[in-house]
């Protein structure tokens, strides 16, 4: 139990540094730290699939982000947006946060999984019938590719969309050379 608090505190500290430091490169490295601690946390939360995915995605995202910033002359932008807007958004977000604290009492206590509180929850069936019904020993795989395979089709499509989008955004010529009918 203690380990979660320690890791979460580390994450929060890394986040604060990432948000507050002026140097973009160190900020990105701090985000990398957040992601890596996050994946460690997933491991302790018994989610090895997510931990693997998080770690590799983190590596790739870091490579991409560092490539973005390192060759460009890193612009130091200090200060935030207009004062009024900043104060207003801080106040609003603080209110949301305080409201949120109350809300988490309605959830089952930490360490008690949600599905054990509900008699007809789908997760219980996944665990008991996942292997015989789908043949996959990894219940996560059984869920994402069989029970909820439609979601995964959507997920693959999201990635496809973003790649097409990135190709479009980064293409060299945007308009044909002959001018529009004038």
């Amino acid at each position, binding site marked *: 139990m203690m380990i979660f608090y320690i890791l979460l505190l580390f994450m929060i500290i890394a986040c604060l540094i990432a948000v507050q430091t002026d140097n973009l490169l160190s900020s990105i490295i701090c985000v990398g730290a957040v992601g890596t601690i996050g994946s460690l946390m997933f491991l302790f939360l018994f989610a090895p699939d997510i931990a693997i995915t998080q770690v590799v995605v983190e590596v790739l995202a870091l490579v991409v982000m560092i490539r973005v910033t390192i060759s460009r002359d890193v612009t130091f932008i200090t200060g935030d947006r207009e004062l009024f807007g900043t104060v207003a958004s801080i106040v609003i977000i603080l209110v949301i946060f305080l409201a949120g604290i109350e809300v988490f009492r*309605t959830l089952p206590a930490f360490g008690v999984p949600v599905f054990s509180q509900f008699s007809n*929850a789908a997760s219980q*069936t996944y665990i008991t019938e996942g292997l015989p019904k789908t043949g996959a020993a990894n219940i996560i795989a059984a869920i994402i590719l069989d029970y909820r395979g*439609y979601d995964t089709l959507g997920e693959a*499509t*999201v990635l496809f969309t973003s790649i097409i989008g*990135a190709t*479009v955004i980064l293409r060299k010529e*945007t308009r044909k050379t002959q001018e529009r009918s004038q």
Partner: protein
Amino acid sequence: MTVPLPVFVALPLVTAFILPLCGDRYKRLATLLANAAVLALLVLAITTIGKSYSYQVGRWSIPLGINMVLDGLSSLLLITISVVSAASMLFSVRYMEQYTAKTKFLSLFMLMLTGMNGVVLSGDIFNLFVFLEIASIASYALVGFGCEHEQLEAAFKYAVLGSVASSLILFAIGLVYGNTGTLNMAYISQAIQTRGLNHGLTFALAMFIAGFGLKAALVPFHAWLPDAHPAAPAPVSAMLSGVLIKVLGIYAIARLLFNVFGVSDTVGWVMITLAVLSMVFGALLGIVQWDFKRLLAYSSISQIGYVALGIGMGCVLTAEGKLKWASMALLGGLLHLVNHAVYKALLFLASGSVQMATGTRRMNRMGGLAAKMPFTRLTCTIASASIAGIPPFSGFWSKLILAIAAIGAGYYWIAGIIVLVSVCTLIMYLKVQRYVFLGELPDNLRQCKENKGTMLVAMGVLALLCITMGALVLVPSLKSSLLDPAVQVLIDRFEYSARLLAGAN
């Protein structure tokens, strides 16, 4: 014959996967393929009228698997999406020739369509989120399609606010899961009926409204819309303003409020407040714009307010038990949704036609185009008359029904605001007529010509719809097959979950 529901998602999806393979060499083939797919979807969507069935993906019964649900509301939205996308696609055949990477554009367009169809048909809340993301990400890329200053900034702003909205929605989904232990909307609804709303679910509902409100650009979440919608290429603007904000925003809110969380007074008044703010601010800010498409974008904010007003009034009146007026308000809201999709798409296409001919969007650099572009002028006038609510045209009927519902339920001030905003809208579009089509023709525009071919066909079809759309309420058989089932789905509230759960067992 009932069409298997996955076809509505799989057909555009597979087309979108094939299109980039065509490359620039087979561009004509790709265009043909995309148009054929969109037309096929339109035909398939029309066959769903009056039907109501669900489909369990992978033959897993809910809540194990995901289900897709077709009912009156989904059917109405499917048809709206198909009509607007068919017209925009036809328009883009010629319009997008000015840009490179046309096959990629077509692919993104189909992906956006996939996302919207998926959202409308989904019966699972996380699945709804996934398809919402597909549609959103495709629209971020499409807004930035031109890669010019304005487009890039608008796309970034849109992407940031859209991602914040998505995070809020996902967090809310987590809260709902934590409180009900299921993700299927019918089961969530059942859990809420038996155990009532607690703090967690109320907070989740607030987050849902904020997230979907961001996607729908209701004031005060509207900051991205006046940048994003004008920046996109005209057919994309037509899709974004015409259907995207309604499907991702209004549809999702309506579905969650009525069929899942259950209506209450407070939520209804929140919706009405947001709606009235949107109507008034959109109209007032729109009047002072000089950019043609930006004016249309502000007008979209104002008009989405009408739709949200219908939903909000429906919510309050259902909670108060005045079912007759509630169904009237919902009818007005949904009719306005359809009407606005058609005429705003037409207006954006007309603005694209003007922009293509003149090369500018500033209204004070235009003028006298009536003689040069008679067809664009005609269609634009029809659309303006519809949006301003001039009697025989479509917009009049929906506003009338909304006003009658407001008066009937005793909220006279709402009816007053409806009329006032309508007057503002009229002023807005008189300004368009005055500065774009009438007045002096500037010297540098002497050469400009009317556009040809498919662009005019697309605009003509939409203009025809604008004129005849009044039939949706006036002809009883149309009304009872299209609009009434949609209203009924919302009015019946928990009938939705009862029907699906009965089908599951």
